[in-house]
């Protein structure tokens, strides 16, 4: 068992991960989604995965969450291979997986593992308050807006007291203003709670605003094309020159200009990365 030394220091360690899907009805033409992915996420770190849609970033997250099995390679959590979902690492879904038959309070309490009833209750109301839903404890999800439902899901995840949150485009289905507000709230919560977050988004600005490091993935079959540290104090203003520069850099790595237009070099790996972004 000669594990590389940093495996034990990394909260999440992705080791030479490959993922291939068999195409239904055409097994001769498998879809190669992920190619030799390596990634280390430190404890308490906020890492965003960005990339064009269909690049396999959600697939990577689902493997990390224990919902999918990789074709090759493995993901380690606290040094142990991830084989199945674990309450220590909670997944937050874009589609919103809040249980509609339970009230807000019952949803938030779903994964709580405290001994006494008083403890449970205190924890549940603590997280309901944290996501700004005080007064909605007895409400059913269908009476809430999409943004509020996503807050319930975040509260439910936090109330299970996990070490890691996997967030799969959690704000992707929300309107622009709600998305902006929830980003701010998420950062505030994260700064208070200091959990490790692995956050998938296709929105480069979202990634720059949230992440300690942005992992940029290319088109399928995708590899990690660059890992961009965002060393800007929070809360971050997207109009801040550094943020804008980083955003443009990430677009550049993806082969796009800041308007999202394809630029020369495409995304096939022929462009020259600035030295600090080279892997």
């Amino acid at each position, binding site marked *: 068992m000669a594990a590389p030394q940093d495996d034990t220091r990394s909260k999440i360690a992705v080791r030479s991960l490959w993922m291939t899907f068999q195409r239904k009805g055409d097994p001769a033409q498998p879809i190669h989604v992920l190619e030799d992915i390596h990634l280390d996420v430190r404890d308490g770190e906020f890492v965003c995965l960005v990339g064009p849609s269909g690049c396999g970033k959600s697939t990577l997250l689902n493997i990390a969450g224990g919902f999918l099995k990789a074709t090759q390679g493995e993901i380690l959590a606290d040094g142990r291979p991830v084989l199945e*979902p674990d*309450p220590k690492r909670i997944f937050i879904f874009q589609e919103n*997986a809040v*249980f509609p038959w339970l009230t807000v309070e019952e949803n938030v309490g779903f994964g709580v593992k405290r001994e006494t009833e008083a403890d449970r209750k205190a924890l549940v109301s603590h997280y309901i308050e944290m996501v700004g839903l005080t007064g909605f404890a007895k409400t059913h*999800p269908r009476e809430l807006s999409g943004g509020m439902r996503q807050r319930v899901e975040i509260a439910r995840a936090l109330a299970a007291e996990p070490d890691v949150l996997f967030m799969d485009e959690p704000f992707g289905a929300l309107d622009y203003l709600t998305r902006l507000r929830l980003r701010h709230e998420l950062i505030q919560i994260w700064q208070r709670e200091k959990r490790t977050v692995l956050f998938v988004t296709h929105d480069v600005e979202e990634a720059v605003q949230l992440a300690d490091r942005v992992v940029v993935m290319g088109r399928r079959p995708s590899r990690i094309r660059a890992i961009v540290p965002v060393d800007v104090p929070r809360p971050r203003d997207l109009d801040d020159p550094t943020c804008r520069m980083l955003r443009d850099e990430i677009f550049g790595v993806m082969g796009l200009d800041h308007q999202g237009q394809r630029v020369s070099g495409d995304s096939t790996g022929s462009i020259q990365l600035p030295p600090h972004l080279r892997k």
Partner: protein
Amino acid sequence: MKDRLQSIGLPLLVAIVFVTGWHFAVKVTGSDIFPTPLMVVAGLVELAQKGVLVKYIVASLFRVTAGFLLAVFVGIPFGLLLGWFTPLTRAFNPAIQVLRPISPIAWIPVAILWFGVSDVAPIFLIFLASLFPITTAAMAAVQNIQLVYIRAARNFGITGLDLFRKVVFPAALPQILTGLRLALGVAWLVVVAAEMIAVNSGLGYLIIDARNAGKRYDLVVAGMVLIGLIGLGLDLLIRQMEKLDEVRWGLSR
């Protein structure tokens, strides 16, 4: 206010026109056998005075309740299991799909052969009639559960029977309830048919007996009216359940 006036006033108007038309149609044709609405009401009063009205209603309701509940207790667990375990679906679904289109009425001779002329025969028929819609609904409900609910539950460490109790069943409940409503409607149709043949009490028996014993068509129609009203009542009852928070999320669309 206007909506309320319309939703009560318009159906009332239709009823008045219908009953009046019925009355004059009987008068104009000079039928000796077919009753006017008033004669039907008199028939109902006669049944009540003889003490059979309540007795027959209770007999029919008892059979429906017994057969339906039996089907609920068998059909829901069976359907949930079928929906959850794909090999079970593959094994049982063809048989279910062959048995399902057989009208419960076709089972009457078999029911009499097995259970004789007793309460058991109609209860068995109602059980059969309700079982297929309930089982099919429960099966489809489980198959339609959104994968994210199952994934989220597993993520929180919920497995096995707990997963069924806490997620699969509640997630399937709205669609199951729709199946129950369908089944109860069919059960009520079937009890009347079964009582015409297999027993000597109940609303179905009332209809066939009134016709056979002296062509009392006032009582025949009285029985029909009762069947309609009670059927409506049963449906309203089950619709009340659709208002519960546990299922409303999956129905209001």
